[in-house]
């Protein structure tokens, strides 16, 4: 129970940080997506079932708190949580490369899913501009933070709350 509450707290803190404190380091109003990184690391360490659930919850939190279309982030994070959750048992979570590579793949996947959704919703977008603003910049931010987020996830996963 304590562990579950800790995970909720971590996701909430991550969201609060990425929407307030980390705005200090934003570039062109683009910032790191800590919820995405948490979802990826959580899925990689807990499997597809919990990964999908974490993606669903994290995405829903973003959707509700940011006021965007309901399901916009929920969908993408859920798919990503599911996809990365399938990798459990095939990757070694202690490898330094794992969070770095997975953050790049997850950011690209998140971008593709969101672009498809936006196009399906009937919006027109400038693909070149969006590649720069919505893929390249987040990619760099996520790459920088991925290792630390993964470390936090691994630490919390292995932490025992038994008194």
């Amino acid at each position, binding site marked *: 129970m304590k562990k579950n509450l800790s995970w909720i707290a971590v996701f*909430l*803190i991550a*969201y*609060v*940080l990425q*929407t*307030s*404190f*980390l*705005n*200090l380091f934003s570039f062109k109003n683009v910032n790191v997506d800590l919820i995405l990184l948490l979802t990826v690391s959580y899925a990689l*360490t*807990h*499997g*597809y*079932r919990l990964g*999908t659930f974490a993606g*669903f919850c994290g995405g829903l*939190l973003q959707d*509700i*708190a940011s*006021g965007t*279309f*309901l*399901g*916009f982030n*929920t*969908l993408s994070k*859920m*798919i990503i949580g*599911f996809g990365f*959750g*399938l990798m*459990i*048992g095939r990757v070694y979570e202690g490898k330094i490369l794992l969070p770095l590579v997975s953050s790049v793949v997850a950011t690209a996947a998140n971008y593709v899913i969101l672009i498809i*959704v936006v196009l*399906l*919703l009937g919006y027109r977008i400038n693909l070149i501009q969006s590649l720069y603003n919505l893929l390249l910049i987040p990619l760099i931010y996520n790459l920088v933070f991925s290792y630390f987020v993964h470390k936090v996830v691994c630490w919390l996963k292995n932490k025992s709350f038994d008194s």
Partner: protein
Amino acid sequence: MQTNEPMGKKIWILIVVLLGIFCTMFFSAKDRVSIPLTNRTVITLLAPFQSFSSALGNKSGSIINALNELMSMYQENKQLKAEVTTLREENLHDNELEAENQRLKGLLNYKESTKQFDLVTASVIARDSATWINNVVINRGSNDGIKKDMPVVTPDGLVGAVIDVYGSYSVVALITDPRVAVGALVQRSDSRVAGIVKGDIDKQVDIHMENISRAADIQPGDQIITSGLGGIYPKGIFIGTVDEVGNEAGGLLKYAAIKPAVDFQKLEDVAIIVNSRELSPEVLTRQMQKAADGGSRETGTAK
């Protein structure tokens, strides 16, 4: 190692959920779906934390900005200091050039006004630190046609004579040196008293004129020029002004303390008289006329 449990029919649940979300999203985009109170509740719950975190961020931002400003100010300060140093150096160089220009102009004017002399200009490159007011080294030597005993002058007046000559430099004994004796006379037309100008060995004055008879007409303010006697110094080069007249120890002769025309402490550029010609009678008459009219030492020679 942890592994996934078999999916089984969970995959169908996932697909259904995804489809549900997809539909919700589309309806939400068309403003047909809204969850009352949810947004407000979540935002209300998160807002205080976000506010605190933002404040923390802003505080950190201010500190980072202040540090950035400090760093940029430091860089700017360094740059400005370097600029100031460069400008000072340039200014110093300019001033030096201007001073040199003035001195060389003076020498050039002197050269033009003293047609009877062939002059070679030179710069003082060294002074003997022990007896620096007596000897100087100049950057001209035998390669430039300089020979021993050639007189050295400035536009202000007589400096001394060359005593040693080397390939590209020479040593000049100044008239303040006690070993140097210059035949001199009072420029005033109704006096023309002759004597010998020498350096003062006890340095009470820079130079003095001796061998003056008691009855000689010499008084403070008189201008002393070379007499041309002795064969080293041509006639008519300005030496200095009589400062004081006194009796010598024996009582038979007088001496005159002379203030040199040349400031030996500021000696930088000089001219060596490599050849001097006798003035034509017309020029001599003109010069004497000027001297009688009170013509002063504009170019350092008697006019």
